[in-house]
Structure formats: C-alpha cells, structure tokens
C-alpha cells in the first residue's frame, strides 16, 4: 500500500497540492483522474521521489520516502513520466535494458536479458528491437518507454498518461496487461488517465484530483457520476450504465 499523509506542495508560494491524505490500495489498479493542472503529475513525481518532499509523508510498503536509499527504492517503485525530456540515441532494446539498471548496475546478467526479452514481447516491440528510438513514431516510442518501466519489474508502478499516443488496440492491451499484473502478481499500479471510460472500465479504484485537493475516491461505479463530471471536470456529458460499468457518452 502507498500511504500519503498530509501532503502539501508549493512552488513559489503557490499551492500545487493541498493537504492530501490518501491510500493507494495494494494489488489494485488505481486511476488518478482530474482536469489539466490539477496536480496529478506533481503527486506522482513526489511519490516517485523525483522532487523533494516539502511537508507530509509518503510510505511505500515498508519504505518511507526520504529515509531510504535511491537504489533500494528503484527496485520497489518505478515511474513512467508524462513527457521524457529527450529522446536518447539508443536502440529500443538498449532503452528497455536500462529498466534493469537498478539490479545490475551496468552489467546485465541472463535474468536481466530474459526480463528485457519478455518486456519487448509483451509490448509487441520484437520487430522494432534493433531500431533507434529516435526513428520511431510517437506511439511506438511510448510503448518502448512503457516496456522499460515494465522491465524494471517493481511492486509499485506509477504511469503518467501511459495511453498518450497509443491507438485503441495498444491502449486496451496495455490496460489489460496492467490489470493482469495487479491481480495476478499483486502489483500496485497507479495510472493517470484522461479518458474516464478507460478508468471506469479497467481501474479498481478511482481518485479524482481537483485544484490540488482530492475531490473524490472510490470504486468506478461510485465515482463516475454526472455530479463528478460537473464538479471536477465542469462538463455536462451524459453517463449510461453498460454491463455494470458507467460509460461517459462523448
């Protein structure tokens, strides 16, 4: 479980996150939703210790952020950032291999190679393995980044808008894979999603963030309501129930 207690974060005196206290359940897929600028990416980067904590505490399983080594954390939790700042001149396989760095520190063993092969296969990158990441399409590149995060093979995974650039088949395959990892391998996965329908269909738990505060948390059936869409997203889209899942008509 990831427990976040009284987490606040300011940049230049402006509150980005305001007294957030939530638990992200173990072995479940949690979708983080909210309008642009709500603070979703900021929250993830704090959980992933990419930015230093200002106040509040975050516990990831038995580890407390700020009190354990970086390398220790890297074997427990991984993050797929929303935008990677630059595209490295590496082949897809080399990029995915970096996911194993916390384990091998530069000298991959057979087990590491096996994990990389698996990640390449799962994300349908076998044919692209030797291509340079620079030459890939946006969606292919996104898949390579995700594969790297999967190769890191951590108990906790934070994925910031993983569906960016992905087509419908790749999106559904990824979400299905995420569910499988959570339910069969007891991994705790947090996904930032903009498409409420994906959240409703694939997540076990939804947390809505609005202006740096938690606006709602609960199961999809409880959360995806016209009231939420109105309050959090300022949208009057209609909602229908299909097969027990709320579906937003877009």
């Amino acid at each position, binding site marked *: 479980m990831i427990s976040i207690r009284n987490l606040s974060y300011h940049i230049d005196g402006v509150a980005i996150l305001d007294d957030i206290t939530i638990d992200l359940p173990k072995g479940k897929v949690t979708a983080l939703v909210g309008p642009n600028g709500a603070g979703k990416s900021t929250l993830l980067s704090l959980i992933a210790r990419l930015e230093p904590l200002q106040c509040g505490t975050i516990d990831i399983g038995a580890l407390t952020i700020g009190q354990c*080594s970086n390398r220790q954390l890297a074997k427990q939790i991984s*993050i797929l950032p929303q935008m990677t700042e630059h595209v490295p001149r590496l082949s897809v396989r080399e990029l995915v291999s970096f996911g194993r*760095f916390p384990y091998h520190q530069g000298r991959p063993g057979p087990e590491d190679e096996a994990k990389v092969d698996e990640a390449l296969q799962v994300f349908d990158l076998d044919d692209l393995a030797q291509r340079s990441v620079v030459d890939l399409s946006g969606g292919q590149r996104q898949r390579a980044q995700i594969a790297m995060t999967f190769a890191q093979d951590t108990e906790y995974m934070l994925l910031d808008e993983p569906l960016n650039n992905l087509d419908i088949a790749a999106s559904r395959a990824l979400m299905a894979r995420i569910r499988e990892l959570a339910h069969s391998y007891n991994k705790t996965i947090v996904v930032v999603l903009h498409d409420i329908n994906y959240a409703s269909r694939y997540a076990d738990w939804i947390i809505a963030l609005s202006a740096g505060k938690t606006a709602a948390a609960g199961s999809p059936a409880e959360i995806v309501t016209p009231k939420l869409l109105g309050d959090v997203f300022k949208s009057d889209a209609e909602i229908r129930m299909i097969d027990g899942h709320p579906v937003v008509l877009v």
Partner: protein
Amino acid sequence: MPKRFWILGILLVICCTAFMTWGARGPLHFVIPFRATKLAALGLVGMSISTSTVLFQAVSQNRILSPSIMGFDALYIMILTAAVYFLGGMTVANLSAHLSFAVSTGVMVIGALGLFSTLLRSSQNNLMRMILTGIVFGALFRSLTDFMQRLIDPNEFSVIQTGSYARFTQIETDLLFIAAALCAGALFLTWKMRFRLDVLALGRDVAMNLGLNVRRTELEALTLTALLVAVTTALVGPVAFLGLLVVSLARLVVPVERHAPLLICAGLIAMIVLIGGQLLFERVFQLTTPLAVIIDLVGGSIFLFLLLKGHRR
C-alpha cells in the same frame, strides 16, 4: 564499431612512431627521451581534454559545451596567478612547481564545485543561460588574472607564463610525473563511472527512477572534470575548442549514447589530433602557425555550427 577503434588505434600508432622518428638527427640517446617525454605529455593532455569534455557534457546534458567554453581553464589560471600574487613568486617558485600545482588544483576543484554545481542545477535545460554564464565567467576570470599579472613583479611573472594561449611546443614537462599520476587516477574513476554516465544521459528524472544518486554522480563528474582541466592547463595552457572538437568527432564515430566507446574514441581522436597535428606542423611542414590556432579555428567553427543548428543534446 570495434573496426573503427582499430583504425583509430592504428592511426595513433603511426602518428606516435612518426613523431618519435621523423627527421631525428643527432645522438639518439638524447633525441629519444626528449621526444618520448613530449609524446607522453601530448598523450596525457589528449586523454584529459577529451575525458573532461565527455564528463562535462554528461553532467550538463548537452553536446555544445565543454569545460573550456564554461571558463574552467580560465579559472585555473586565475587561481595559479592568485597563488603567485598572494604568496609571492619567489616563494611559489621555491615551493616548487609541484606544490603550487597541487595547491592550485585543490583550490580549482573546490572553486569549480562551488561555482558550477549550483549553475548546473538551475540552468540544466537552459542552454543559452549556460553559455552566457560561461562567457561571463571566462571574461571575469581572465580580467582578474590580467589585473593580478599587472601587479606582479616581472621577475615573478615567469612562474605563470601560462599566458592566455595554448602552447603545445613548450610543455611543462617537470610536472609530467605528478600530472600523469593524477590523470591516471581520474581516468580510472571516470571509467568506473561509465554506466552511471549512461544513465545520467537519459535525463535527471529517468536516472532518479533507475535508482541513480544523481546529485552525487554530478558532483563526482564535476570534480573529475576540474582535476583533468587542471592537469591540461598546467601542462599546455588553455585549450579553448579542442575538447569540443574531438568529442564532436567522436560522436560521429560512435553512433550510440554509450560512454564506454565514447570515452575511448574521444581519447584516441584527441591524441591523434594533438600528436599528428604537432608532427605535421612542427616537423613535416615546419609551419610557424601554432597548432592551437588551427584547432581553435576548426573547433570554434564546430561550436558555431552546433549552436546555429540548435543541436541541444
């Protein structure tokens, strides 16, 4: 890729052999040690310059900058001048070149860490700000150096002949031994860091995610850069665009973002450029144009080209 290394290696061997033997007249027992010392010094300088540039580019996350462009060697000369100014040239001379080298190098490492570690943190994604700061630092260090040199007794001035231009013909060979030891240590540590540099090059966030201690790696790389710059500047003076030149060439030869091949390749190219260039200029064509001028001309053009191309990384 290994084939390219072989070609570079063979080229280097040819350069070294020619350097040792070309037009050798007079007693061999005199010529050989004399030339061997020079050869060793040039090789040392080549390795230091290429390695410090690779390190600095990894830390600053771009491919246009080099320690010289950021004013590292100007800083070293300023520190050396300050040592002469405040301690008095005679004392410094008496203290021996070794001690003043050691002291200046120590101060250099502290100064570089103080000045550049915060700068790197605050302007990592702002190339123009980095370049501007580098220019300002360089100008500041140089004018302070100039100012102190004017105040120094001309007799003491000879201690800091280091001047404002590189000289590959008159190398401070009496420092060679200590410089070689320092350089070997720094190169060894850099080689040990090579995988961490690969991870650092993926960007700060990705590196953190992969468990790299980013801050520590940056400080280590910066320390090694400062050490290596001190070594080169003490031996041959400021080198301006040589580092950028050889690392840019090496990036063309090594198509992937891996520091192991990049370090080797940049080192080989640097030694070829220095030894081969010195051979051609001094012995074969007996030109009066210093090699440093040509290197800066070519290196400077590459700098402008990369800058105009907007090639940030």
